[in-house]
């Protein structure tokens, strides 16, 4: 690894932190460029990370280790899964800052500081290799998000901020006890070591439930999803983007990093629970989304439905399903982030989230209508967009495990098409009944700069997903190998040899890398 000497991950953590401290002490006119500069610098570093990451190299790359805080080791390192999620974070961050450029006018310095702090913590979650360090980053994110919702949120922001904070805190404190037990059992807090520790099967059940309590709330899974619509609706646009784009992914990342490889037997035993909750979530939240009058609430409920497809994919115990789940996470991060930005664009003009206050705006906002349609289609899962790739893979994977769960979860795509197209029709098409909506300006340069990059990546992921699959393939294969011993039998009675899957299982056939490592 060529960049091993430079502690690039520490630098990526430090840049937003320093910028956050600066922003607290400067005027609004200066805080905005500082925030944009810091997030762009981090994005560039992310690019360096992406380029120098070697998909065929060591499992953990860019590792750093220092015993700074006694029992808490400052251990960082990433594998392909972390890499993609870090990229998602650093990609969305400058867009969030840009989206808040004009819409945030009060306490700008503090706002930017909270967002930059959030970025440090998000990167930290995905890069931490010490269990306690992970927990610190994971939990610490509550504080800036609490402030973002509470200070810059909408009408009911205080209720929403409390609910967000206490719900997620209650979910994760029990996980801390489980972590302490694990550290004592294994004698180390080092995540790579813990990944290869076999915990006793009886203990796994309790540990799995403790982790589940935390990640299910974060994800969020039905029935503990109720904090999400409130938090989304009340948060400022950029807050919603980060919440949907990255924070929800921490739940999926947690399942992938901890629950599955550390407690394979327990995970297998709890498949019915996870699939059951996911099936309910897909159908129930999709139907709820269908009747929403509030744009943000609708997208929030659609998030819950999409995350349910992620949980289905993760607990398939096979390569396709897990890869699919990761791609859904990335895709949903981009698409729902973009959808919230789209809502933000018209909210900035009309200051209402009520769907019926708009209508026919494709006449006066053609560019906006085009982009909005692209993201709508990506959310539905139209082939050629990122949504299709992920959902197809994870549902194809889950078919091997449970045909029923797949059947129900797939209705989510149909229902998704229902509520998203209905939303699009009510906003963009039809007669222009509201004069003020008809008089809105089309999107300007700044807004174009925010939405166009996401649109490009969404299409890229849809047309050539290999770029995003290459870095994660080997790491997913490692997890699949690890949990193979507990893999469920499945009820679909597939043929003995599945040529497509075999071809993509490169973990045992390194020579295939020539064709596939070309990201």
């Amino acid at each position, binding site marked *: 690894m060529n960049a091993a000497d430079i502690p690039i991950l520490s630098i990526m953590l430090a840049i937003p932190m320093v910028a956050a401290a600066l922003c607290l002490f400067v005027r609004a006119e200066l805080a905005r460029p500082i925030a944009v500069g810091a997030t762009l610098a981090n994005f560039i570093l992310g690019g360096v990370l992406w380029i120098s990451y070697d998909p065929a190299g060591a499992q953990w790359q860019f590792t750093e280790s220092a015993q*700074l*805080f*006694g029992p808490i080791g400052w251990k960082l390192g990433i594998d392909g899964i972390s890499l993609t999620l870090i990229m998602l974070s650093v990609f969305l961050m400058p867009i969030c800052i840009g989206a808040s450029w004009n819409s945030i006018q009060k306490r700008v310095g503090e706002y930017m500081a909270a967002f930059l702090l959030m970025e440090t913590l998000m990167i930290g979650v995905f890069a931490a290799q010490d269990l306690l360090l992970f927990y610190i980053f994971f939990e610490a994110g509550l504080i800036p998000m609490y402030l973002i919702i509470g200070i810059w949120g909408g009408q009911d922001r205080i209720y929403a901020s409390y609910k967000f904070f206490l719900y997620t805190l209650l979910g994760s404190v029990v996980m801390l006890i489980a972590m*302490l037990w694990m550290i004592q059992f294994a004698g180390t807090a080092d995540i790579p070591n813990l990944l290869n520790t076999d915990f006793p099967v009886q203990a796994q059940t309790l540990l799995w439930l403790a982790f589940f309590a935390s990640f299910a709330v974060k994800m969020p899974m039905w029935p503990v999803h109720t904090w999400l619509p409130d938090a989304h609706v009340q948060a400022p646009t950029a807050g919603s983007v980060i919440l949907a784009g990255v924070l929800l992914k921490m739940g999926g990342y947690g399942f992938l990093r901890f629950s599955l490889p550390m407690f394979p037997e327990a995970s297998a035993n709890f498949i019915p629970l996870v699939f059951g909750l996911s099936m309910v979530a897909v159908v129930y939240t999709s139907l709820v989304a269908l009747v929403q009058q509030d744009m943000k609430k609708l997208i929030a409920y659609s998030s819950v439905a999409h995350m349910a497809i992620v949980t289905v994919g993760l607990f398939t115990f096979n390569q396709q399903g897990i890869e699919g789940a990761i791609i859904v996470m990335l895709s949903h991060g981009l698409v729902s982030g973009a959808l919230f930005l789209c809502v933000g664009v018209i909210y900035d003009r009309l200051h209402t989230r009520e769907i019926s206050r708009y209508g026919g705006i494709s006449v006066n906002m053609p560019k906006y209508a085009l982009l909005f349609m692209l993201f709508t289609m990506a959310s539905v899962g139209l082939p050629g967009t990122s949504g299709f790739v992920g959902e197809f893979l994870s549902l194809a994977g889950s078919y091997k495990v449970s045909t029923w769960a797949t059947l129900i979860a797939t209705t989510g795509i149909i229902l998704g098409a229902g509520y998203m197209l209905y939303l699009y029709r009510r906003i963009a098409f039809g007669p222009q009944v509201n004069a003020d909506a008809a008089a809105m300006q089309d999107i300007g340069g700044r807004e174009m700069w925010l939405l166009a990059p996401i649109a490009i990546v969404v299409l890229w992921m849809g047309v050539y997903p290999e770029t995003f699959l290459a870095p994660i393939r080997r790491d997913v294969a490692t997890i699949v190998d690890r949990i193979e011993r507990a893999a469920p039998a499945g009820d679909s009675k597939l043929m003995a040899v599945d040529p497509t899957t075999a071809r993509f299982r490169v973990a045992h056939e390194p020579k295939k890398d020539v064709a596939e490592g070309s990201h």
Partner: protein
Amino acid sequence: MELNASLSLVRPEIILSFSALALLLLAAWMDQAGRLISILAVAALGAAAALTVSLLGSGSSASAFDGLMVNDAFGNFSKLLIYIAAAVSLTIAPRFLEKAGAMRAEYPVLIVLSCIGMGVMVSATDLISLYIGLELQSLSAYVLASFVRSDGRSAEAGLKYFVLGGLASGMLLFGASLVYGFAGSTNFAAIGLAMDKEVGLGLIFGIVFILSGLAFKISAAPFHMWTPDVYEGAPTPVTAFFASAPKVAAIALLMRIVLEAFGSQVLVWQQIIIAVALMSIIIGAVGAIGQQNLKRLMAYSSINNVGFILIGLATGTEQGIAAMLVYLTIYVAMTFGGFVCLMQLKDKDGNYREEFSDIAGLSKTRPGLAAAFAIFMFSLAGIPPLFGFWGKLVVFNAAVAAGLLPLAVIGISASVIGAFYYLKVVKVMYFDDAVDVIAESDDKVLVWTGGILAAANSPLGYFAIPVLGVWTAVAAKALF
């Protein structure tokens, strides 16, 4: 043992005793010397603290006065914490007391006297010396609580504290007499030997009474009722003092007596400690929710925190004791920080304000103060990455290591209830509309103390973990 050798082991107490007497004489001859005497008292505490620091890392322990007291790492660590806390309470007090017209020389003298008592408490290895130390500390504290004589609330607080404290001392003394009667000795080691064989009903009664008396002193539920009233009524610097030094001393004393005297029969007291710990956590958290007065809120917060500290004691292991000492250290920093912020809440006429409604929108008018206050609140709630999280983590880690999983799960879940009211403080300061009653602080000492404590509670505090870990581990070893 030779008297000289014994005397050399209690040098910090001797220094403080002579200083207290000298300062009292000085006060008799000089009018309006409150500030000067405060400075001299801080110097005396500093000298005493310096003597304890040198012994922190060493595991040596020496018994003095035929087993009445001991000089060991545990006592020295506790004393260092107590002296520092007392010195801080002296430093932040003058302006507050001057405003109340009560900056008299007795304030530093009483604090120094109380420190002598606390020093005896944490190094006592005999029920007699324990009681002498406890009473010396308590009597000074009763006077301190009613120090602003002209204020009705302060006088009421002192009286309440005195009556209820007297009751608790009586219970403790009754328990001590039972233990003496059934174990045949007042010495901790001898009691421990007697308990090795067989524990009769009389001895158990004695232990229960001693623990009840001490639970009162550390304001653990169900003996916590005095705390909110006394905290609210006493002058704020005195409240800060009550919440820190005497609490450290009483908890250290509890640790020593439980482990050295009753250590061989863990099952006898463990369930009591678990019950008291959980009750304190829950009552402290639930009781705080309805409070409108910030000092009362801090009182419930201290009840809540004592519950978490006691979880470490419930384990009865060396790791648990070390964890308690870590938590105590962080707790002192957090709670002092909270009170230092409270003391800066002055309106434009210079009156001290302490209601929730006064700090509405504080982040707009006094951003620095609000940020510091928010740091202390999140730290008290134990939210990472603030340093308060580390205290909770080590205590729960010890509980998990000792196999007390249900206790750990219930305790940490109850901490979420506590988070609610800490969040409320942040919510009022950051989310509500500004009322603009709080004026710019004119007391540089408070601003600086607050700043330093906020930095200590921020993630910067994590750099102290290695040193703290070594010292507390050595200190905990001394009890086993």
